[in-house]
């Protein structure tokens, strides 16, 4: 890793790591009476580990000029491995949380392991740890291929990858220590948020600098989605996290917004974290890996334009459907509902574009579990976007809101769509990256596929059942005109479904562990060769559509 950096980059890396160590020291001193001090110590440790690694490799020979002829894939390789690590950790914690709802005593009489603290550990680990690392890793891979240009330098991708994982680490350890803003999916406190902004700016600069050197006149559709992901997540993150810290020595901060304005801002963020983190980014992944694996060009270029701008525009209005019948003004609720329903059009256009791309390649879908992962992902994307639009209708929401139905819906999207497209993309790219004909074991990919599908279906059906039963029990009246069930009655009715959900999650977790083993064995048996040459020719699959030919 260090051997690939130029001497200048090694020096700059040392300067940055020293600066990070100083910042960590400052945080540790300023926050010595607060939980913040622990995070200062963590930052120092990370910086020292980095300094040690750079010094250890400092006198390695400088990289040769030939590196410019090859794509720079090592950050992608590390990113994929790290993503799989977060997947197993996050799914494990998720399943633990699920069992806590069945056996509430599994908390060791301690704060760090109680439901409220480790539930965000689960969500952050899977969304940001697994999903985010997979997005960074694949985006750097896709960006280079579709631009036919190498990454601009060797240092910035490592800064983004490690900096981002430092953010995830601060987030997850913080929750267990008791540091949280309580804003769902934006729990990390102010200092971690500022750090993420810095990482994100560098991430986007890699994108712009690589695009500036592209040899392909058109920016491929996958990059539109990755760019929308980076840009809009930056906007959402900065606005929703505006806050005033208690002092520079406190981890705690108070949000700039309160009450109804905070609720709207939070769900504008929350829903669009789903839109631009868990949808746009992974659509970018889909638009590259699915056509490549199927060896078929994207079905329709025009459909991809319509769905891209439709998603970018409509999604940002939809957040208020999280606040139906609340103290949020009625007109905002109605706008949110309307745009949520309209959102079905670009969503299904994307799903249809993916599935129709497979026309002529369905024999491969049957034989190749990797491609089948991506196909099932597109199906779940279509299903969960339909469900989402449906649940955003005010009268449906009156039943579904606050219940497990929402949890089921989210997991149909995250397990069925996000995780499946990611596993598909990872199984496709691991042999490409490590120069193997195929994965170590196609059978194990098949095993993983069926575990993932079974786990998702068990999970989602359990939550549909529990959610709808809950919603109905809460609103059922007896003949005498009083509420028929107490809250505890509904809680007791949930128990079998909570067990089923935890079992479904366990199946999904086992699948991910099988995937890790398979990836590890593929890497271990891989020959040591140079990276893939920067291509002189446009990729025939990606520019194969007739619409792109004229004018070239």
């Amino acid at each position, binding site marked *: 890793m260090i051997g690939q950096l130029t001497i200048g980059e090694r020096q700059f890396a040392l300067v940055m790591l020293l600066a990070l160590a100083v910042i960590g020291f400052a945080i540790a001193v300023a926050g010595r*009476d607060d939980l913040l001090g622990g995070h200062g110590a963590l930052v120092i440790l990370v910086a020292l580990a980095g300094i040690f690694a750079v010094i250890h490799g400092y006198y390695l020979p400088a990289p040769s000029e030939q590196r410019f002829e090859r794509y720079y894939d090592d950050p992608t390789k590390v990113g994929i491995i790290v993503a799989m690590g977060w997947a197993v950790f996050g799914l494990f914690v998720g399943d633990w949380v699920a069992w806590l709802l*069945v056996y*509430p005593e599994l908390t060791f009489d*301690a704060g760090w392991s*109680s*439901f*409220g*603290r480790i539930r965000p550990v689960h969500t952050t680990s899977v969304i940001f740890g697994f999903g985010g690392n997979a997005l960074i890793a694949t985006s750097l891979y896709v960006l280079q291929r579709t631009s036919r240009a190498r990454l601009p330098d060797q240092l910035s991708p490592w800064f983004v990858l490690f900096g981002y994982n430092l953010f995830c680490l601060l987030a997850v350890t913080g929750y267990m220590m*008791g540091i*949280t*803003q*309580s804003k*769902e999916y934006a729990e990390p406190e102010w200092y971690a948020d500022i750090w993420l902004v810095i990482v994100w700016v560098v991430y986007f600069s890699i994108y*712009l600098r690589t*695009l500036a050197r592209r040899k392909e*006149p*058109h*920016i491929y559709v996958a990059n*539109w989605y990755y*760019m929308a992901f980076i*840009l809009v997540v930056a906007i959402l993150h900065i*606005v929703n996290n505006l806050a005033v*810290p*208690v*002092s520079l020595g*406190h981890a*705690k901060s*108070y*949000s700039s917004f*309160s*009450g109804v*304005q*905070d*609720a*709207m801002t*939070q769900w*504008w963020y929350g829903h669009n974290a789903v839109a631009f983190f868990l949808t746009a980014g992974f659509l970018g992944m889909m638009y590259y890996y699915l056509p490549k694996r199927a060896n078929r060009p994207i079905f329709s270029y*025009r459909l991809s*334009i319509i769905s891209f*701008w439709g998603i*970018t*525009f*409509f999604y*940002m209005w939809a957040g208020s459907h*999280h606040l*139906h019948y*609340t*103290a949020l*003004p009625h007109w*905002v609720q109605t*706008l949110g509902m309307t*745009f949520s329903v309209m959102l079905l059009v670009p969503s299904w256009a994307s799903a249809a574009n993916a599935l129709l791309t497979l026309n002529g390649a369905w024999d491969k879908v049957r034989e190749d579990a990797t491609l089948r992962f991506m196909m099932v992902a597109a199906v779940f994307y279509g299903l969960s976007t339909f469900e989402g639009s449906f649940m955003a209708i005010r009268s449906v929401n009156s039943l579904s809101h*606050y219940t497990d139905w*929402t949890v089921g819906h989210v997991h149909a999207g995250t397990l069925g769509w996000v995780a499946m497209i990611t596993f598909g993309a990872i199984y496709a790219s691991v042999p490409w990256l490590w120069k193997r004909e195929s994965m170590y074991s196609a059978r194990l990919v098949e095993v993983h596929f069926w575990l993932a599908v079974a786990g998702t279906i068990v999970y989602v059906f359990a939550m549909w059942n529990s959610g709808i039963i809950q919603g109905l029990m*809460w*609103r059922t*009246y007896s003949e005498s005109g009083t509420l028929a069930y107490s*809250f*505890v009655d509904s*809680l007791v009715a949930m128990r079998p479904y909570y067990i089923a959900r935890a079992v479904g999650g366990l199946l999904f977790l086992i699948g991910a562990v099988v995937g890790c083993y398979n990836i590890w064995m593929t890497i271990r048996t891989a020959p040591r060769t140079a990276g893939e040459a920067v291509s002189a020719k446009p990729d025939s699959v990606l520019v194969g559509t007739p619409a792109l030919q004229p004018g070239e």
Partner: protein
Amino acid sequence: MFGFHYRLERKAIGLVLAIIGVASIGGIVEIAPLFTIHQTVEQAPDMRVYTPLELAGRNIYIREGCYSCHSQMIRTLRDEVERYGPYSLAVESKYDHPMLWGSKRTGPDLARVGGKYSDEWHVAHLNNPRAVMPESIMPAYAWLSRTALRTDDLGAQLKAIRAVGVPYTDDMIANAPADAYGQAAPDSPDAEGVTKHYGAATNVRAFDGVPGSLTEMDALVAYLQILGRLTDAAHKPVAAVGR
């Protein structure tokens, strides 16, 4: 349209600006007016701020992630109003930075739980939920009774939340640690300051049943007991609540 796009997708900066522009519209239209239209939040002259002890309790509620299972937002639906009480008004959370409306009811809504149960019930329930409710799946929070509440930074906490718009006075900030202690020690000289700063209706009692020591249990119970009781606005007829 597609011809235009065909040119647009050849320009990285053009694409960037187009994405930012298209994505910004929804948020601007839906969020900005909430700060400018006065009808968004009702008037409630009787609304009071959280005492330092209640604020500390609220921060414990946040720290422990209580919001991930309990909402604090009663919707305008008949069954919710009958189960939990009058539907929530925007003004009731206007000092909540951030709001804790929640999104999931694994447990019941807490928007109006204040005063519904005794302090003893809350302490017993938090120590071991299954002791008072055998079917409960809530985690036990027994360590709260064993943990002393940090009060030395309460002045700084109040100052920070004043910076984002909650009207704490200099007097309240200066006396924050003493007020926190006094609210849970009714016989101490500090107790007087609490009612002086926050009104005669403020709960002043040993919330965890032990007057001498100030624990996190005191703070959390004090917070739970004030939920829904910062103002009476929600209990008045709709016409009487000014907008």
